[in-house]
């Protein structure tokens, strides 16, 4: 019907998810209700349900941070060539940030389980180095006000032994480049918060020390 309407009569159409988005926008349903609806659709084999990191976060929370098959499928989309990789990698980086900051004291699985899943998905892609660079750029912006979180996640990845030696070296350079970009960005965005810029700069210095001593 949509093809007919569009091709023969110039009538615009939309999918049910767009309707849900409109309902959320018009405050007919709450953000949580929207995320739950998306999760229901994903659970019922709906495909190309574009989710956000909020959907993944809601799913992880509702399952006591135990990675379910559906969560794994969502994270594996990073390597799916049919999916827009820029969006997928942004979701992955935002989700890593969310997991790192979440309260997992009562969780069934630790944050490292989730980070491993994210990293495995990125590494299973055709050009992981390209995705890792995007991942860091997104993570840097996401963690602009929390450089310690950026440091925590990137240190975990560098120590995880999942990266090959050349890929690890590439990742380390990208981390340092991201820090170099975030330091002036923090100054520009938060001129009244000089400590933030200093924290980013110290993070770069700390990484050099850690790397020189083989601690990361």
């Amino acid at each position, binding site marked *: *019907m*949509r*093809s*007919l*309407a569009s*091709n*023969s*009569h*110039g*009538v*615009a*159409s*939309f*999918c*049910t*998810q*767009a*309707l*849900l*988005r*409109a*309902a959320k*926008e*018009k405050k*007919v*349903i709450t953000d949580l209700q929207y995320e739950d*609806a998306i999760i*229901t*659709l994903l659970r*019922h*084999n*709906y*495909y*190309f*349900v*574009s989710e956000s990191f909020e959907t993944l976060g809601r799913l992880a929370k509702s399952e006591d941070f135990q990675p379910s098959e559906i969560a794994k499928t969502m994270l594996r989309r990073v390597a799916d060539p*049919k*999916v*827009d990789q820029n*969006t997928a990698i942004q979701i992955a980086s935002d989700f890593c940030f969310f997991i790192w900051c979440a309260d997992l004291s009562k969780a069934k699985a630790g944050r490292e389980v989730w980070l491993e899943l994210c990293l495995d998905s990125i590494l299973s892609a055709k050009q992981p180095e390209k995705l890792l660079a995007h991942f860091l750029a997104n993570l840097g912006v996401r963690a602009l006000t929390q450089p310690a979180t950026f440091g925590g996640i990137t240190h975990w990845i560098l120590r995880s032994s999942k990266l090959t030696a050349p890929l690890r070296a590439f990742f380390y350079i990208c981390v340092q480049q991201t820090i170099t970009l975030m330091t002036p960005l923090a100054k520009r965005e938060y001129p009244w918060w000089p400590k933030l810029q200093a924290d980013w700069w110290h993070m770069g210095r700390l990484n050099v020390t850690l790397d020189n001593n083989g601690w990361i």
Partner: protein
Amino acid sequence: MAFVKAALDCPPEVKVNDKYRKAFHRSLEFLNKHPSGFIKAIPFERDLKSFLAMAKARADHAHRIDLIRDKNLPMSILAQQLGLSPFHAWVGLIGHTKLHVHMAYGTTQEQVKEAETALTSNAVCLDVFALFTLRLLNYLNLIPKLYPKIFVHTATLESIVSNIREMELRKTGMTISYHEGKLTRSEVGPEETDQQLFFLRDIRDFLKSPVVELVGLDPGLISTADMKKAQEIPRCYSLRADCGLQVASCGVLR
């Protein structure tokens, strides 16, 4: 034909007197010989050769359709090709291990455009799969809150009502299919049927509510070959999975 169908649908405890029994057999015999092939007798040999051949042919056909489905074959076409109602095709897809219900093509531009359309529309025409999705989410009540005018094709209501009637008559069902060289039997119990009935009745009640305007195709407005084709398959008029359709010009669908 209706008489034979009604007789076949009768529960076993219904007693039929000889006069009607003979009339039923005559009708059955007539339809069996009719060139339309509405009813076809399957010869039951000892080795079930004919029956197996039929089941295998159907499985092969379904497999070919599955392959096309992977390339975004519309659900309604899938349903039609497999001789299923849209509801049964949808139920099959939401539980399938390999196939999916395609929501959208997934590009960012498409999503932005669709979201804009959904936000700015005043009238909406819903297809049968959009109704199934919204009922699955328990969000049928959302539509009147978002759109003052809601149009649904009469064929959609007919399809839903037909499914309900069929399920009310047969609370249980059995399917024999062919899978990897073996005949497999699957049964639908009364509890599952009741759940499906509940699901479909909710949609029927929504369609019959005053917020929905049921519309059909006006033959006078059918100009293109595609639209003529659409009229030929009124039960499966939706050409893409899970869609709502904003109606800019109601004349298109009236």
